[in-house]
């Protein structure tokens, strides 16, 4: 006869099995239509480009090599691929600046919402949530209407007599920066708000009691308290900005490509799927490093307080 211990063990094993069965459909769908195909990208990055797109099943490391290097067509020597490097650099630079700008604008906004009376708070939060969930493409189009040559920004500046000719903003890096800051701002405000909501203002009061001024309280009390929110918001903005495709396509020109557009090019006119695959994996690697840094930063904090 089975002992009570045995029965309990069997029941537990059955429960775990049931829980796996219950989650299987979700796991299978994600594997088939999201995670699994990523493995195929790895394979494709080591193949030879076919003449009309797709690949020829012949091993080659040229895809990876061309991410950073360029083979001279005449004497076969290798040189750094300046075009690719400048796009990597632009993507990194613009994403970083977007993160900083959304933080500079988002921090006071989140703080403002968090310090409203409870009833008002929902309304302000709602006003951030709406753009958060509205179509990115529509918001990009909306900001385009503001910064284009005949747009509101130029019209107002001309009417005020500050400028006589419209400033060309579209198709510049400036447009990409403004556009990305605009579309990603809610991604920064919401996590910041989530951690500011929990601030214990007695700590702030203690800071003032100890003769800190407003700036010192902000720097030494508030910012350390909401650090997880700052890190989360920065990650949430930096990662999609780095892989941005829609915003640079609508607001930038062919001279302002970002990584996302460079990748698309390889699968379109470029007809170099292995290079496109290698570029995608490079982008993913950068994102993974950013996420690891995030996990470590949050983990360290948790360790210090726990």
């Amino acid at each position, binding site marked *: 006869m089975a002992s009570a211990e045995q029965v309990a063990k069997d029941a537990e094993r059955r429960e*775990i099995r049931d*829980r796996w069965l219950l989650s299987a459909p979700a*796991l299978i*769908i994600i594997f088939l*239509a999201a995670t699994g195909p990523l493995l195929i990208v790895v394979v494709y990055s080591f193949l030879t480009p076919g003449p009309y797109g797709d690949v020829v099943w012949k091993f080659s490391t040229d895809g990876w090599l061309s991410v950073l290097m360029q083979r001279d067509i005449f004497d076969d020597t290798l040189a750094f691929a300046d075009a690719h490097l400048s796009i990597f650099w632009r993507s990194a630079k613009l994403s970083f600046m977007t993160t900083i700008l959304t933080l500079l604008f988002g921090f006071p906004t989140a703080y403002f919402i968090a310090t409203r009376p409870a009833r008002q708070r929902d309304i302000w939060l709602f*006003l951030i949530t709406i753009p958060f969930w509205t179509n990115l*493409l529509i918001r990009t189009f909306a900001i385009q209407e503001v910064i284009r040559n005949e747009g509101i920004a130029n019209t107002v500046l001309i009417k005020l007599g500050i400028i006589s000719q419209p400033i060309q903003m579209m198709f510049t890096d400036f447009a990409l920066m403004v556009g990305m800051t605009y579309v990603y701002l809610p991604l920064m405000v919401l996590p910041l708000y989530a951690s500011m909501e929990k601030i214990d203002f007695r700590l702030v009061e203690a800071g003032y009691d100890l003769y800190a001024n407003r700036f010192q309280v902000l720097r030494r009390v508030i910012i350390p308290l909401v650090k997880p929110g700052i890190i989360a918001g920065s990650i949430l903005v930096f990662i999609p900005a780095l*892989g941005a495709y829609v915003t640079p396509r609508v607001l930038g020109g062919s001279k302002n490509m970002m990584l996302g557009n460079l990748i698309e090019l390889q699968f379109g006119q470029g007809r170099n799927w292995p290079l496109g695959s290698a570029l995608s994996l490079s982008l*993913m690697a950068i994102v993974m490093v950013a996420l690891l840094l995030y996990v470590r930063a949050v983990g360290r904090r948790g360790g210090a307080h726990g």
Partner: protein
Amino acid sequence: MASRFDIRRQTGFTTIAMICFFALYLPIVTLVVYAFNSGNSIAVWEGVSLRWFYQAWNNDQVVDAAIRSLQIALVAATVATIVATMAALATTRTKPYPGLGFKYAFINQPLMVPEIVTAVALLIFFSRIKIWTGYSGLGYLMAAHTAFCIPFAYLPIRARLESMDLSLETAAADLYATPWKAFRRVTFPLLWPGILAGLMLAFVISLDDVVITEFVKSGGQDTLPTYMLGQFRRFITPEINAISTVFLLISILIVTVFFFISRKKDHE
């Protein structure tokens, strides 16, 4: 005036916040206003008219794309919500078991990878399958949308489940309810707001998707967002504003309902 010293105040923060709210809404309001322009321009105002809404309504390409968007979003959101509910039941209210951490990571994986990378991966994978099977229907888009909708549906359902304790289900089991009966009569009615929130999030996410759709779609499978993206290359008329306005209205409606469902939970 000797007002009380407000410890919460920070110099300039309110001003910056007001600038942010203004800047967030000014472009959207402009976009909506010009949808009602009677002229051909999205920059020069000529008078109020519904002309562009009428034109968009009679544009077969727009209507087809809109119907396609809705079909995909309905299927993707429904399937994603069902499997996400099952997954949430399997991953909450339990002591840690082997594989639990893996499941969390795997379900949230579509959120971790940049969309363009997933899009490229699906383009490669599905183009192979298209060659092998000869099928090139909407199934690919529905499958892709379902996959990236799952984590969005999963989050509110899981959050709701975690706030419910197991005692009612235990009571049901004590009264000889089968697990299915206990789910249908006890768990489901309590979980319902979470499921509804998940469904709506998934629906909006699917409706809004540009990048993955752009890479996965076959010829003639434009959804509303990819149709609009294609139009930006051409001369833009307020027709795009009119389409955007209707789109915005639908999103805002869904988000409003979602917002109040999920807020209500907090105040209970």
